[in-house]
């Protein structure tokens, strides 16, 4: 045990950088690179692993039927690299890792199999640079296995002192556990994210081959697109309202319902209920409420004798606030529940102590309860910011972006899927991502700091 610990003093102590391992590592890295990044170079669609993956898995009902094994390729590419890493990190396991890597490496060719021998069978599956890169890597993998065999056999015969055979080094175990989520994360989140960034530099129409056009999309977005300005302003409005109103109302309701009261549970459920509904349903309900002739709101107003009834969603000035109001209605319950949970965790002895010291209600709230709720407040604000930035459903259902209610997410959707400007849509997505990143980075830095403090 002692030896294992001392071995950890530098993180790559005990790695094996002999020839075959380096070769395997290189080949594994190139394989990963080929899968995720090759689409960045050259126009040939057959290079385009990520695009094919997205097409097959997201878009086509029934596409999975004939090429169901396509998902193996990215998994195998990642697994190959993992196997080479394993071989290097744990030399005593090389007798498994090395053949595993070479076999997995060969498997990456699997994806190209349908294309071989049937030239032009499928425009996406013709052997192109993607195939040749994978092919060379696979050969290198086999080669490293052949080269490593003598060393492996020898090491297998005389295991190192202090390392029990057949067991993984202890420090590796957690990484092994997170390997699968990490791989999935790389395929479903990182890959598409990076690919979107690339697409934002192209003029892709969703069908033809993307052409690199530099920063032209961003240039248009920032200088010549009034929809972008409108969306940005609306997202900003949304954000400000979301930070102010649901947060304060949710806190107020939580403080109110935290006390025992008759029917308290019923009220809590009532305020929480909207959260159970899906956003499109909320959008439809509110669109009915806002109907100027038959809607509940104007009916009530006219019963109260109001003439000159507002047109709500039909009015350019009011529409965006109407949509935000529907979103707030839902958000209040959410925030309330978060604060209620936070209040349950407040130790009553603090409050009793403050009472004994003669603190009034306001002082109690300001100097005892609020500071104790600070972590909840942070979460609430972060959630509000993220929810307001990704606002899409309500706008899409209630106005489809008309009447001055455009927001970034819907704008992106319209450009990409209605106007067939995928590249431009990707540029909007990247801008939205960058804005979100500012807040997320801020939150993460705080979260990590807090974690270190406790």
């Amino acid at each position, binding site marked *: 045990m002692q030896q294992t610990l001392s071995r950890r003093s530098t993180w790559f102590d005990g790695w094996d950088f002999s020839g075959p391992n380096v070769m395997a590592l290189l080949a594994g890295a190139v394989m990963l690179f080929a899968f995720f990044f090759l689409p960045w170079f050259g126009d040939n669609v057959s290079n385009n692993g990520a695009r094919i993956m997205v*097409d*097959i898995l*997201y*878009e*086509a*009902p*029934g*596409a999975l039927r*004939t*090429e*169901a*094994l396509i998902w*193996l390729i990215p998994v195998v590419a990642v697994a190959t690299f993992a196997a080479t890493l394993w071989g290097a990190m744990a030399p005593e396991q090389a*007798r*498994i890792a090395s*053949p*595993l890597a070479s*076999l997995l490496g*060969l*498997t990456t060719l*699997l*994806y190209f*199999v*349908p294309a071989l021998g*049937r030239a032009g*069978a*499928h425009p*996406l599956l013709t052997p192109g640079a993607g195939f040749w890169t994978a092919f060379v890597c696979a050969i290198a993998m086999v080669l490293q296995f052949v080269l490593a065999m003598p060393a492996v*056999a020898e090491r297998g*015969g005389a295991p190192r002192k202090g390392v029990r055979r057949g067991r993984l080094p202890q420090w590796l175990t957690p990484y092994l556990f997170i390997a699968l989520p990490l791989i999935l994360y790389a395929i479903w989140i990182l890959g598409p994210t990076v690919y979107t960034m690339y697409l934002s530099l192209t*003029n892709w129409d*969703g*069908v033809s081959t993307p*052409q690199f*056009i530099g920063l032209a999309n961003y240039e*248009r977005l920032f200088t*010549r697109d*009034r929809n972008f300005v409108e969306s940005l302003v609306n997202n900003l409005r949304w954000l400000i309202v979301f930070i102010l109103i649901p947060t304060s109302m949710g806190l107020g309701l939580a403080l109110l319902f935290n006390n025992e009261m008759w029917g308290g549970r019923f009220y809590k459920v009532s305020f929480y209920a909207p959260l159970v509904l899906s956003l499109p349903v909320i959008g439809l309900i509110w669109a009915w409420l*806002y*109907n*100027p*002739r*038959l809607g509940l709101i104007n009916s009530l107003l006219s019963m109260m004798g109001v003439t000159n009834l507002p*047109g*709500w*969603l*039909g*009015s*350019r000035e009011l*529409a965006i606030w109407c949509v935000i109001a529907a979103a707030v209605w839902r958000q209040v319950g959410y925030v309330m529940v978060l604060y209620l949970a936070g209040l349950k965790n407040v130790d009553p002895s603090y409050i009793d102590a403050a009472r004994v010291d003669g603190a009034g209600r306001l002082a109690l709230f300001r100097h005892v309860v609020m500071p104790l709720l600070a972590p909840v407040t942070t979460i609430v604000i972060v959630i509000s910011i993220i929810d307001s930035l990704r606002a899409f459903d309500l706008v899409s259902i209630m*106005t*489809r972006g*008309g*009447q001055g209610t455009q927001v970034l997410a819907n704008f992106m959707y*319209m450009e990409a*899927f*209605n*106007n*067939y*400007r995928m590249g431009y849509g990707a540029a909007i997505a990247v801008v939205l991502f960058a804005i979100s990143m500012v807040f997320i980075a801020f939150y993460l830095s705080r979260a990590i700091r807090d974690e270190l403090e406790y």
Partner: protein
Amino acid sequence: MTRKSSSLLLTLLLLFSMALSACATPVTAPPAAEAPAPAAPTVNKITYNSYQSDPAPRAWIEGVVANWNAAHPDMPVDLSIIAHEDFKQALRAMLTANPAPDVLDWFAGNRARFFIDRGLIADFSDLWEREGWDAVYAPGFIALATYNGGKYFLPSSYYWWAIYYRPSLFEQAGVQAPIETFDDLLAACDALNAAGITPITIGARFKWPAAAWFDYLNMRTNGPEFHIELMDLKVPYTDPRVRAVFENWKKLIDAKCFISDPAAYDWQEAIDPMVQGQAAMYLMGAFITDSYPDEAENDLDFFRFPVINPDVPIGEDAPTDGYFLAANAGNLAGGKEFLAYLGSKEVQQSLLDTLGRLPSRVDVDISNISPATQKGIQLIQSADFIAQFYDRDTTPPMAEAGMDGMMRFWDNPDQIDQILEELEAERQRILAEAEE
């Protein structure tokens, strides 16, 4: 040594066989796109994606598919119905998928050309010839199906657009139907307003009903030829003739012809004021009767959009729906067979008899149709020119920007020039993109 190497060999063998078995699937099951499975006694499915999601057309198309499946157990049709708006968005993904669905609903016009240019829609001239469709389809529809010398589209039916109105409300306000000139329309607005009736209802939440007004005002002011040039992006939006269209539109708005806050309603919600007797007219396609309450339909009639400039030919919007085959279809041969059925006289006859949609074949028996449908056919036959519709005739981004501009114009009728300049900028952008 021997034990070790044997265990190693075993591992190798195991992994290799796993890899092989993994390989086996794509090798033995190639995408069905190439050569149909040799001597397959199995069923050869045909996939068909449709956007007929309204209740009546949905029931009809399901019936058609059921008939086909009963007659062809060896190649049944797998029908997916997708809501109209979603279908528009999803089409790109459906066509680029591999294999793509075999048969799809779509409409003629610019949106189809985009995909034909990119090689995603199959040319079925052979089927067209085999079925002898050139002899039985009306010439206008054959022209619609033809692009660059190939046949890419099978027109199924079309419908007319007209101003629907309630005769009883016209009577109440003392308005004479049909309204034949623009001035009469403005006068009718005054008369109806005086009687406390909103002259024209419109539900423009999703914008396109406003585009119908633009289409008609443009065709009546400048003529259909100019309209199509504008749709093809050959004329700048800053052209004074386009401005004249908006000027006319402004006259209607200033005369308080329209319901207030049109953007607050979707097109079906805007029917309610009409049913309740609060609004008298609605410029809408013939499909309005699908959503109009049946019991109120005896007090619903329509007339041709009034003439503005008597010197220009009469153009009408008659959007044509139909079918096409995906170039990436998994079962192209089967798709063609099903298409032949969809284009047959039998199916067209039932489309007319069941849904009252106007057939594109000339040999369909129209003697039994309702007077309303006969009137609709006459409306289209008396027109000098047939357009599809704003968002079908022009490119998708232009349609989006254009309809957005129309709605902004509606709220701020004084900003015509600024809005037209923005539309012109969008046109320039689209032209530049096409050259890339």
